[in-house]
């Protein structure tokens, strides 16, 4: 039996839609739109201006501050505009719009293999930073910051997250099958930075092909002593950072601490692959893997896609929307952690690992079934953090934020959505907690500001 964490839920996977569809490269035909802020942190500063000619892999915006990351162009062509455009989250953000010439001429030197043994640790991190790599699992934290903790010797585990516990998404499954060696190469480079660390590739056991491919690659590269391939039980949120650390290192830690504080660094397999490409091939992050799926799509597919490609173009590449169905909901990401999109005419960013197009909206259906809370305690059983969601919701209901924060540890909620998923009374618990956490943080900031 595979190891797993406490709590969790078993939503229907729907991975059969696309899990056997091999990755295919998709080159955008239309314009490329690159938001300056693609992950957590400050948006990057553009280094190009309107009418400049750019090449594939050219850095067109530079990190502005500590938590910020570079943006590279994913096509060759002319900068058409730097203006506000609607992005995948629905917000209008500053974007660099490039007129795609369709030639994809690369910057010289990109994609040429180098001997990495000569690189120092600082040089490795500098290359990762230059490549503009951020966490591709969804949060989008700059990887070069994550790879430079205060004390590298205290890191015990580098966890490559291939769990892919989110329903529908299969692109990392396919990436592990086809680029197993590339992922391991990236992981080996990261392990060079951390002398005491063990590499762990964590994969849910619903991906037997990926597990086999990774094991084979590990044997081939003779790294079995440094890297273990760890199959995990299929359960959501198995791929959550905290769930993985719970399983691998046996540590639970509060949200006020970082994984590095307990000796762990967790990176998505896609991110680790990008690190390998950046360091060995000097290739900035301008492509990543993505799944277009859902019951509304004609041919659900896995793509290697260029950053800034329009979602609508990708949906067309999948054969478009099935005939005779109505599109009810579009999600950036999967149904548990993903967010609803209002339009398909937005560009994919680095953190977009899936677009799920559905003909049914279960949220809408559940609203009609909503009753008072039964106090059944199902939310308590599934919470991977060990919280008491029903009492937290009660505390919010009566406006007792003090109890929410200090007695019920409501800020420890990781918004995984498990409680909302299982709630038989169909209460919108996760939404309540997201809102309340934001409210408490805002109050704290206001208080801190007032004391100055």
């Amino acid at each position, binding site marked *: 039996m595979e190891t797993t964490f406490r709590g969790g839920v078993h*939503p229907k996977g729907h991975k059969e839609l696309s899990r056997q569809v091999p990755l295919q490269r998709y080159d955008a035909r239309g314009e490329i739109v690159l938001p300056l802020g693609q992950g957590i942190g400050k948006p990057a500063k553009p280094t190009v201006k309107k009418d400049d000619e750019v090449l594939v892999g050219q850095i067109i915006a530079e990190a502005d501050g500590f938590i910020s990351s570079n943006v590279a162009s994913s096509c060759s062509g002319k900068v058409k505009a730097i203006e506000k455009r609607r992005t995948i989250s629905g917000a209008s953000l500053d974007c660099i719009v490039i007129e795609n010439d369709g030639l994809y001429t690369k910057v010289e030197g990109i994609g040429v293999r180098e001997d990495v043994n000569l690189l120092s640790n600082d040089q490795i991190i500098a290359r990762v930073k230059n490549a503009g790599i951020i966490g591709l699992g969804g949060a989008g934290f700059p990887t070069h910051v994550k790879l430079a903790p205060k004390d590298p010797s205290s890191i015990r585990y580098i966890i490559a997250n291939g769990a892919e516990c989110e329903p529908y998404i299969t692109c990392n499954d396919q990436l592990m099958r086809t680029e197993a060696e590339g992922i391991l190469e990236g992981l080996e480079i990261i392990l060079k930075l951390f002398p005491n660390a063990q590499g762990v590739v964590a994969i849910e056991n619903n991906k037997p092909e990926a597990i086999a491919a990774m094991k084979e690659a590990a044997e081939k590269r003779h790294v079995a002593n440094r890297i273990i391939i760890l199959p995990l039980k299929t359960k959501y949120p198995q791929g959550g950072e905290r769930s993985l650390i719970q399983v691998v290192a046996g540590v639970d830690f509060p949200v006020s601490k970082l994984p590095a504080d307990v000796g762990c660094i967790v990176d998505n397999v896609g991110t680790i692959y990008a690190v390998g490409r950046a360091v060995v091939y000097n290739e900035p992050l301008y492509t990543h893997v993505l799944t277009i799926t859902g019951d509304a799509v004609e041919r659900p597919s896995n793509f290697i896609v260029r950053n800034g490609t329009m979602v609508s173009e990708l949906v067309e590449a999948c054969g478009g929307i099935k005939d005779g169905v109505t599109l009810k909901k579009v999600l950036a990401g999967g149904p548990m952690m993903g967010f609803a999109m209002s339009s398909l005419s937005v560009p994919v960013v680095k953190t977009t690992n899936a677009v799920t197009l559905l003909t049914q909206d279960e949220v809408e259906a559940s609203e009609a079934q909503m009753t008072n809370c039964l106090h059944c305690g199902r939310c308590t059983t599934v919470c991977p953090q060990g919280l008491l969601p029903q009492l937290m919701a009660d505390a919010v209901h009566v406006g007792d934020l003090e109890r929410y924060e200090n007695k019920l540890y409501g800020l420890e909620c990781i918004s995984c959505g498990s409680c909302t998923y299982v709630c038989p009374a169909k209460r919108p618990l996760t939404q309540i907690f997201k809102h309340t956490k934001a409210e408490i943080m805002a109050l704290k900031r206001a208080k801190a500001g007032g004391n100055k």
Partner: protein
Amino acid sequence: MNTAINISSGPHVRDRWTTPYIMGIVFMSLMPATIVGVVVHGLHAFLIIVASIVAAVGTEFLFDTLCHKGKSYKDGSAAVTGLLLALSLSPDTPLYGPIIGSVFAILVVKCCFGGLGKNFLNPALAGRCFLLISFSNSMTVFKVDMVSSPTPMAELLAGRAVNVTSMFLGTSNAVIGSSIAALLLGGLILWAFDIIHGEICFSVLGGFTLFIALFGGQGFDPVFLAANICGGGVVMGAFFMATDYVTSPVSKLGQLIYGLIIGVLGGLFRVFGSSADSFSYSILMGNLFTPLIDMYILPKPFAYRKKAIAIQRGETARKPLSQRIPKSIIVIALITLLAGFALGGVYKMTEDTIKEQKERAAWQSYQAVVPTAESFRAVQAPDIYGQIYGSGFGRVMINEAVIGMDANGKTVGYAISATSSEGYDGNITVSVGISTDGSVNRISFTELHETPGKGMLAADASFVDQFSNRSVKSFKLLTGSAQETANGIECISGATVTSKAIVNAVNAALDFFQNAKGVQ
């Protein structure tokens, strides 16, 4: 394009569990007990169940409609309440019983407190207790072949042996849903469908069994324990009433504490109380503790538990046992045990004093009913004392008989103490003084707690004096328009039950005197 797509906050999927789904499973899990109840007790039991469910759902429907509160009657919880209430009633309850009970349960206990999930007491149990208190005569009627007869629980409380097998199968003379086998099957269904998780059921049953074993007076006698668990709604309470989501705590530790409170209270009421329905009250009291438990018994998130903190600090060595078991569990267990022992201990310590007091009161009453006696000598008849006496006197026990003597040791009269447990409000103990010629001197009460203004009038001279200085074989209670006879005793107006119990006790004493002359 796609202007119609929906926007909402995640997660965007829901599992198939809904409130009606849960209620459906609970309803289904009660079906075995319902079927056994209807098969054993017949059509009237079926009508009670139907009336109760219809009244419950109807009340919620009316409330929803009149108060514009949505369509909560559709969620199935009212039907479950109605069924649970019906199953906890006697199969001989008049049909207005379940209807009034369901209306009270739904309207007052549930809807008036905000509907589903907001009630602080289990509605079905509250409805049942409301009926027991308000209509105690008609609610506790249990008939066998059209004759009122005691339930196994009443028999058990009176200290008699009961047929555990028939209680287990549900063929005994108890409430409709009394088949333990069927209830256990229902509990198994709930557990299999993940509706209940065992913490509450087993702490209720565990606390109850332990208390009965320690203080029930018969130790770990398996038959006695089984009889106690199988009777008085303990199993139904443990699996279907105490586990009610709304009125039980959230955390596992809270649930254990809650279950222990119910179990220990249930045991306490069973051992030291007199009501056969005490378990319902102990669950309601447990319900009242729930908000308190939920306020203070809050498990910490995984990351803040002691073990997690130790690992975060890099400590991995196993700790001694005393530190591994959460301190709170030890404390709670100790408190429960201490409270139990303290109660039992106080009872044991005061047992002798109470006995002495009772004896003194008895001797004083003997003195009152045989005034010419200077001293008394007890008559030895251990086979008879403390047992239900003869037949035709109801549940009457002869406690003791004494011979009164004057200063010279000459017999001047007899006094017999008899207790009827069929008073309106518990036991009635009476001392009957009999003179040497067999006529009744007079009677005196040593135990009488009847309704003031009604049954308590028995202590008045107008009633008591009727017995004085009469020479009869037995007394006859005159009820209604019955004619005065030579042995007639006039009934206290509005207190037939009390009058009957007293006359039975006196008649038993007379019968004992007449038949036991030889053993003097």
